[in-house]
C-alpha cells in the first residue's frame, strides 16, 4: 500500500482545510446550539464539487477518488461533526448505491443533480423494529395494476431527511424460501423522491450530538412510484444495503477520525496557553503522555481508514477493512474527545470551548451505520470465528 498522497490529494487536503477553517468552523457552535442544518455551507461545498467527490465527471462528479472523499469528511469533521456527516450520508448512502446499482438512465438522471448539490440525498433502511437487524423490516412495496410500486411503512433516524430530495429506500417485495426451506423476506431497493405522492417526512429527532444534522422519520402511505425506480434487481435489496453500509462505514470512520484529530488540535492549543501552578499545563507530563497516546491511537485509526478507502478505490474486498476502520476510529474518537475534555478541566465542560461538543458528536460514531458491536460481528465473521 502506497501511503504517499498524490500531488492532487495534497492540494485537496489544503483546500479542504482552508474551507473548513474559514467557512465551517465559524458556524460550528451556532449549528450545534441552534440544531441548525448548515444549508449555506452545503451549497458552498456543492459549488466546489464536494458533494460528489469520487464519481466520474460524466455523471457530474468531480472525478477524484475515494481517499479524496475520505479526507473531505475528515477535514470538515475536525471542526464540525455535523458538516462531516452531511457529506458522508449524501455521498456514501445515496450517491454511491445509485452509482453502483443504478441503470444508466437512473445514473444520468440522479447523479448530476446529487453531485452538484442541487439535490441532497439520504438513505432509508432503519425502522422502529429493524435497526442493525435489517431482516426485521416491515415496510412493503407492492406492484399495482399499472405496474407502479406502492410503498407502505415508516423509517426512522434518517440522516439528512429534512433537507433531502432523493431517498434510497428498502422495502419487502415478497417472501422467498431459501435452500434449507426457511422463509425469508425478499428485500428490494427503490429510489424515492421527496415529492412522490404518499411520501412525507415525520418528526425531527432531538439528539445528543451532531445536532445540526437533520434526523427524521420517513412515512410512506400508499406512496406510489413508477416501476423504473426499482434500484438494482428485485430481491437484491439486502445485498445492496449491506454493500452500501460497507462504504458508509468508511465515511463515518472518517468523521470519527476528524473529530479525534480536531479535539487533539484544540487541546494542544489550549494546554500551551493555560497556566496552572505557574506552568503551562502542556509542561506537565500527564498532559504530554495523554496527548502522545491520543495522537498515536488516532494515527493508527487513520491508516485503517485510509487503507479501507484505497481498497474500495481499487475494487478489492473491503468489508472487514471498513468494519475495522469504523470500530477503531469511532472508539478512538469517543475516548480521545472524552480525555480532551478532561485536560480542559472545568472549561472543557462549558460550551465556551468546542471539546464538549466534539465529545457529544463523537458518541454517535459508535452507534450509527452499524454499532461497534455489529462491526465486531462483521470482523469476527470474516475471521471465520463462529
Amino acid at each position, binding site marked *: 500500500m502506497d501511503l504517499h498522497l498524490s500531488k492532487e490529494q495534497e492540494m485537496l487536503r489544503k483546500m479542504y482545510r482552508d474551507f473548513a477553517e474559514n467557512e465551517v468552523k465559524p458556524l460550528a457552535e451556532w449549528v450545534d446550539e441552534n440544531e441548525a442544518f448548515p444549508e449555506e455551507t452545503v451549497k458552498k461545498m456543492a459549488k466546489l*464539487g464536494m458533494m460528489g467527490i469520487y464519481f466520474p465527471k460524466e455523471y457530474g462528479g468531480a*472525478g477524484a477518488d475515494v481517499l*479524496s472523499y475520505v479526507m473531505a469528511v475528515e477535514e470538515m469533521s475536525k471542526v464540525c461533526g455535523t458538516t462531516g456527516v452531511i457529506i458522508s450520508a449524501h455521498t456514501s448512502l445515496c450517491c454511491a448505491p445509485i452509482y453502483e446499482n443504478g441503470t444508466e438512465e437512473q445514473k444520468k438522471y440522479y447523479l448530476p443533480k446529487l453531485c452538484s448539490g442541487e439535490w441532497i440525498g439520504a438513505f432509508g433502511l432503519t425502522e422502529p423494529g429493524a435497526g442493525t437487524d435489517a431482516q426485521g423490516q416491515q415496510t412493503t412495496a407492492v406492484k399495482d395494476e399499472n405496474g407502479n410500486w406502492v410503498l407502505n411503512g415508516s423509517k426512522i433516524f434518517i440522516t439528512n431527511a429534512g433537507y433531502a430530495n432523493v431517498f434510497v429506500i428498502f422495502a419487502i417485495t415478497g417472501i422467498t424460501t431459501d435452500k434449507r426451506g426457511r422463509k425469508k423476506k425478499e428485500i428490494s431497493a427503490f429510489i424515492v423522491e421527496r415529492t412522490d405522492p404518499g411520501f412525507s417526512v415525520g418528526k425531527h429527532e432531538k439528539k445528543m450530538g451532531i445536532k445540526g444534522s437533520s434526523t427524521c422519520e420517513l412515512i410512506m402511505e400508499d406512496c406510489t412510484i413508477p416501476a423504473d425506480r426499482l434500484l438494482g434487481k428485485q430481491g437484491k435489496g439486502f445485498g445492496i444495503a449491506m454493500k452500501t453500509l460497507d462504504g458508509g462505514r468508511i465515511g463515518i470512520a472518517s468523521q470519527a477520525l476528524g473529530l479525534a484529530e480536531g479535539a487533539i488540535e484544540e487541546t494542544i492549543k489550549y494546554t500551551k496557553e493555560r497556566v496552572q501552578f505557574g506552568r503551562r499545563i502542556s509542561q506537565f507530563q500527564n498532559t504530554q503522555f495523554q496527548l502522545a497516546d491520543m495522537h498515536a491511537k488516532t494515527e493508527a485509526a487513520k491508516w485503517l481508514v485510509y487503507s479501507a478507502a484505497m481498497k474500495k478505490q481499487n475494487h478489492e474486498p473491503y468489508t472487514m477493512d471498513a468494519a475495522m476502520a469504523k470500530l477503531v476510529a469511532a472508539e478512538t474518537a469517543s475516548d480521545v474527545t472524552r480525555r480532551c475534555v478532561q485536560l480542559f478541566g472545568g472549561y472543557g465542560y462549558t460550551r465556551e470551548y468546542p471539546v464538549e461538543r466534539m465529545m457529544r458528536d463523537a458518541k454517535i460514531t459508535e452507534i450509527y451505520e452499524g454499532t461497534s458491536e455489529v462491526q465486531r460481528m462483521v470482523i469476527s465473521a470474516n475471521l471465520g470465528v463462529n
Partner: protein
Amino acid sequence: MKAIVCVKQVPDTSGVVAVKEDGTMDRAAMATITNHDDLAAVEAALRIKDATGCKVVVVSMGPPPAEGMLRELLAMGCDEAVLVSAREFGGSDTYATSQILAAAIKKIGVDDDDIVFCGRQAIDGDTAQVGPQIAEKLGMPQVSYVAEINVDGKAVTVKRLLEDGYMTIKVQTPCLLTCVKELNDARYMSVGGIMECYQKPLEVYNYETLKDDPLIDVTTIGLKGSPTNVYKSFSPPVKGAGMMMEGADKATVEKLVSILNDKHII
C-alpha cells in the same frame, strides 16, 4: 479578450517569521502563500471569465517551486500559467522586475481588449511599485487601488480607493489594474479544478525565452541591473521590558491608574 494576472509567491508572515543570523529572512524555513492582493486580482479576472468566458493567464516571476502556487491558481479556474524563472533574473528590484514581467506579458501577447491585473502590493516588500512600473513599460494606462470593476466591452469602469473616499475612473483596454484584497473574496480551488490543474498548460520562460526583447538587457535586469541596492539590513532591537501588573482586579487597575496619574500620562 483575455486577462493576464501577475502573481507573487510570498513567505507567510502571519505565523512565525524566521530570521537568519545575518539579519535576512530565512525564506526556506517559512511556509509560502499566494500574496493576498494578487489573489484578489486572480478572483477579479475569474469573475470576468465567469461573465464573458474569456481566458485567464497567470504569470509569476520566481524560483521553480512557485509552480506549486501556479497549479493552485489553475485549480481555481485559471486557464494557463507562465513561470518566469532564471538565474539572470534573480536579485531584481522593482524596476528590474517590472521590465522582466513586462517582457513576459509581451511574449504572452496583449490584445486590444485585454486587461492586465496585479495585486496592489506584496506582503514581503509592501512596495506597490511593480504594477505601475509594468504599466509604464508596456505603455498602457494604469489604475491602482482598485476596489470595484465593471467591464463593458473595451470600456472598464473602476472604483479607485483614496484614503478618504474613492474615485470612479473609466479606462479603455488594454490597461493595467492593481487590486486591493477588499475587492472580493477569492474563491477556493474546486475538487474538479484540482483534478484538472496538472493537465493545464504551464510554460516556463527563462532568459533564453525573453532575451530578444529590448527590455531584457543585462544592464537593466537582475541584481546588477537594479537601480536600487541594499546598503544595510538590520533587525530592530527588542524594546525594553515594560511593567506587568499583578492580578487583574480592582486593586490592580487602581494601582495602574495611580502610576499613570503620577507620571502625568493621564
